[in-house]
């Protein structure tokens, strides 16, 4: 008999998963070696756009250790359906077939054209050199506006256009608000700005890898994937395999951030080759391959128009986006900018809203989900815009936010984009953040530095944000033409000795599900935390699931666990009554014990588990099992929010930015494990700050990625980042029984605009109202020297000066 008195939910439990990770006993895909296993290496195109004239593999075939060489033609007959895209956002969306290996034309630098199979990985890589490919170069299309220009070369000739799809939301048509065009004609202030979201690389630390074993009764694929369940179904569908003959295992996965959400051509390639050769094969990419061949994120141009009255009340928002899809469509790529449609209006009460997004093909690596997917882009746009509007109106940027945000007593609140925010308290989070930050003190210091002409200027950046977590209500996904649902599944097995196995469809890659799920079940069933094992990432044990992305694990997957635990108790109750010879109505349950009200008679979950196992004394008609499973399909998203404040020092003589302090107060609802929440926030902040200051995927004019290694792509190290001050408020979500809201993406979403707003605030008196990300010392210095006009291409086109049509108010 045992009981857990102290609640587990809310406790900063140290993680169960750490033990294997800190001792080097982790099961990474690349660690796996199977008997007779062969190794694959992929030859990738050096050209961004070219016709493949010929491929000669004769010499490679006889290279040491080589077993076989395949080209696109060998592997990928035209009849095959190509790599899947699961999000046809419009009925007329252009969806080019993406082959497993290119056999006709290559459409981005890094696209696979041939694959060598050899006894060792080194031999496979050596033999790549011996493959002779003749390319005829084609004109390369780079840049969103270039791709849409009249007469632009086409990425896919057969589509007749570089435009993938146009997706529109209008509040007047949707009945969620009034007309933006009216707001533009009638408002006192109309402010336009153009912002750019540079292209980023997710840069998970574990490169992608897969091992495929075709030798058993089922084909088994181990993959460093975020989505084992989706991968299983998509592998079957893409290759025409019977789904029940495919098993996918995601062992320990070294980070994803959306970058491992894809179904990979390499996974399909490895499967086909393993089947043909009848042997296990392994593919592991190098970092340089990851940089060009794993999908990228962001890459948008945002044209925003905000309208307001002179007192600061916003009256309308118009968003025109161009989004770069790259050369093909990723699994959910076309939908990523669409997620932003629901977040541009953010925490503000816009009466009118218009959103239009044009997705564009270019000769670059495809883009797809990257931490936050659509929401960081949107939050950046609106939070930069609120700062610009404040300047235009001569208001404090905090004041303009407070004037327009949804007040605590107004929840639930249906926004102009049609979402209903269930709960939130922007006032509380902001008050706490301001106090931790010393907002007023820093404003005073800023003024002093400005007046004294200090070479190091101080700026304050604000980002008061919300996001939508818990992807997603299946019906909402359906209305957006997404091919799959948004539910999640969980199963609880009560073992004879009273120990518990929890099986979850939400497969983790560093988020700590094993710990958090154990806490949930320990609380619900009153069994010790240590007595619970969480099993995930294998489609054989966890046969149903929608996997991990979009901060959905806890708020969808965790709730499925709660529901399954409730069912366990419901099954246990009649057995407990039977064992104690009382009526079910006389029972109460607490801390793992059913007891007869008003007596000391009790029986534990563990006792019932054994009774079920022995099955000698069960009520008639009761099955000998407490095992239960359930599925949760959320009725609504959850809406974490927070206030992020950044103080940045800018050396006006060198352009160097130093983050002096970063304070954030996030409201993620009920935190199951505050330790994990804090860790997620830290990591998210690092990624968002890196977008603001360091990272950018750059192509040269020929379409070669010039930032193709960790030597050129500036992933921040420990010296590049400050310590963060993080805190929480807790306004429970009202649409799930845990009251949780999700946290995985919050830090990334909120921090980028906070940092950029801070830097611009520091140098605005030099006539700067925009600097293109990342804010390198060179760009900042240029902006200081020449105002926004020289700060970056876009700044000169639209950022500098042409802001207001009908407003006075300078940039001071």
């Amino acid at each position, binding site marked *: 008999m045992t009981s857990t008195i102290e609640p587990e939910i809310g406790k*900063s439990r*140290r*993680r169960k*998963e*750490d*033990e*294997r*990770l*800190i*001792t*080097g*006993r*982790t099961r*990474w895909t*690349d*660690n796996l070696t199977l008997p007779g296993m062969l190794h694959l290496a992929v030859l990738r195109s050096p050209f961004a756009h070219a016709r493949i004239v010929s491929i000669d593999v004769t010499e490679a075939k006889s290279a040491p250790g080589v077993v076989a060489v395949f080209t696109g033609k060998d592997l990928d007959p035209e009849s095959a359906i190509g790599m899947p895209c699961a999000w046809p956002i419009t009925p007329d969306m252009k969806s080019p077939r993406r082959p497993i290996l290119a056999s006709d034309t290559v459409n981005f630098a890094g696209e696979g054209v041939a694959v060598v199979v050899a006894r*060792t990985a*080194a031999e496979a890589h050596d033999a790549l050199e011996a493959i002779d490919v003749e390319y005829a170069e084609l004109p390369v299309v780079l840049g969103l506006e270039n791709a849409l220009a009249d007469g632009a070369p086409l990425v896919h000739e057969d589509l007749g256009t570089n435009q993938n799809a146009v997706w529109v939301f209008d509040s007047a048509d949707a009945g969620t608000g009034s007309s933006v065009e009216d707001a533009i004609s009638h408002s006192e202030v109309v402010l336009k700005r153009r912002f750019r979201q540079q292209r980023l690389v997710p*840069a*998970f*630390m*574990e*490169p992608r890898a897969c091992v495929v074993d075709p030798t058993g009764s089922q084909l088994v694929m181990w993959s460093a994937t975020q989505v084992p369940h989706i991968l299983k179904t998509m592998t079957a569908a893409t290759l025409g395999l019977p789904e029940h003959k495919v098993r996918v295992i995601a062992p*320990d*996965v*070294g*980070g994803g*951030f959306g970058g491992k959400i894809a179904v990979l051509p390499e996974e399909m390639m490895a499967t086909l080759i393993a089947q043909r050769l009848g042997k296990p094969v392994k593919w592991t990419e*190098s*970092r*340089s391959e990851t940089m060009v061949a794993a999908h990228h994120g962001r890459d948008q141009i945002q044209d925003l128009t905000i309208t307001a009255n002179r007192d600061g009340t916003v009256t309308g928002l118009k968003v025109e986006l161009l989004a770069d899809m790259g050369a093909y469509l990723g699994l959910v790529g076309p939908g990523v900018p669409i997620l932003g449609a629901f977040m541009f209006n953010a925490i503000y009460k816009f009466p009118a809203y218009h959103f239009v997004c044009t997705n564009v093909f270019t000769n670059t690596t495809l883009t797809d989900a990257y931490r936050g997917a659509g929401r960081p882009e949107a939050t950046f746009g609106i939070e930069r815009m609120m700062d610009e509007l404040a300047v235009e109106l001569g208001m404090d940027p905090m004041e303009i936010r407070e004037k327009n945000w949804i007040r605590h007593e107004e929840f639930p609140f249906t926004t102009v984009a049609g979402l209903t925010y269930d709960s939130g308290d922007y006032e509380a989070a902001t008050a706490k953040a301001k106090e931790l930050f010393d907002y007023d003190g820093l404003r005073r210091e800023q003024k002093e530095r400005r007046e004294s002409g200090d070479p190091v200027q101080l700026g304050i950046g604000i980002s008061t944000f919300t996001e939508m977590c818990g992807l997603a209500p299946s019906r909402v996904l359906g209305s957006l033409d997404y091919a799959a649902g948004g539910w999640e599944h969980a199963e609880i097995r009560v073992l004879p000795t009273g120990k518990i196995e929890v099986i979850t469809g939400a497969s983790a*890659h*560093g988020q*700590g599900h094993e710990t958090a799920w154990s806490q949930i079940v320990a609380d619900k069933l009153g069994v010790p935390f240590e007595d619970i094992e969480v099993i995930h990432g294998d489609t054989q044990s966890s046969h149903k699931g929608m996997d991990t992305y979009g901060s959905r694990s806890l708020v969808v997957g965790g709730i499925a666990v709660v529901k399954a635990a409730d069912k366990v108790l419901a099954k246990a109750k009649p057995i407990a009554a039977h064992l104690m010879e009382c009526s079910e109505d006389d029972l109460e349950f607490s801390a793992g014990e059913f007891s007869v009200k008003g007596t000391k008679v009790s029986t534990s979950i563990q006792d019932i588990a054994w009774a079920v196992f022995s099955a000698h004394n069960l009520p008639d008609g009761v099955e000998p099992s407490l095992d239960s499973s359930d599925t949760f399909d959320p009725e609504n998203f959850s809406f974490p929010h927070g206030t992020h404040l950044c103080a940045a020092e800018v050396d006006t003589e060198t352009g160097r930015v130093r983050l002096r302090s970063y304070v954030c107060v996030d409201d993620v609802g009920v*935190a199951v494990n*505050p*330790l*994990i*929440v*804090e*860790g997620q926030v*830290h*990591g*998210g*902040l*690092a990624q968002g700050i890196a977008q603001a200051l360091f990272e950018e995927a750059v192509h040269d004019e020929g379409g070669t990625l010039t930032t193709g*290694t*960790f*030597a050129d792509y500036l*992933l921040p*190290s*420990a*010296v590049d*980042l400050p*310590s*963060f*001050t*993080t*805190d*929480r408020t807790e306004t429970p979500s009202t649409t799930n029984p845990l009251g949780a809201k999700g946290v995985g993406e919050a830090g990334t979403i909120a921090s980028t605009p906070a940092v950029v707003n801070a830097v611009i605030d520091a140098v605005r008196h030099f006539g700067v109202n925009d600097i293109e990300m990342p804010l390198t010392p060179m760009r900042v210095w240029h902006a200081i020297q020449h105002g926004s006009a020289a700060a970056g291409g876009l700044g000169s086109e639209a950022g500098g000066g042409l802001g207001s049509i009908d407003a006075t108010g300078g940039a001071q």
Partner: protein
Amino acid sequence: MRITVTVDGTPCTDDVEPRTLLVHHLRERIGKVGTVVGCDTSNCGACTVHLDGHSVKSCSVLAVQADGCEVTTIEGLARDGELHPVQQAFHENHALQCGFCTPGMIMQSIDLLADDPDPDEQAVREGLEGNLCRCTGYQNIVRAVRDAAHRMRPAAGPEAGRLASDTASRVGAGGE
């Protein structure tokens, strides 16, 4: 070429190609897959091990250079089932998420503490500059290294325990 490397206390003699990198030798020949590869330009530090007591990126050392040397990997740190204090501090301070950078981070941290037994925050950050982590934002790693420094002080005793639990109770309040 025939080389002998003592890995985590066990001598291993093997024929290797002159071009084989130590990390591949460890992973593929000796089976020490706890040491991982994160890049091909010696920038990430995921592959860090100790070579004769000093941290090296094992992707930038040839296996033949390690002939006659002692190599310690993440798998050789725990003794008699007892975690190394740095491993323990990483766990206590939630200094890892996906854990891919962790073996390298821990090996580098141990070397850093050998050089400077009581580093301040900036010294830890500088000492870890060659090791990239995409998950943690480094803050808890820095916290863990400083916590480990206290645990490893000869007279740490109960003081070390107190610091560890202080760290735990600060969670949620943020800040170093």
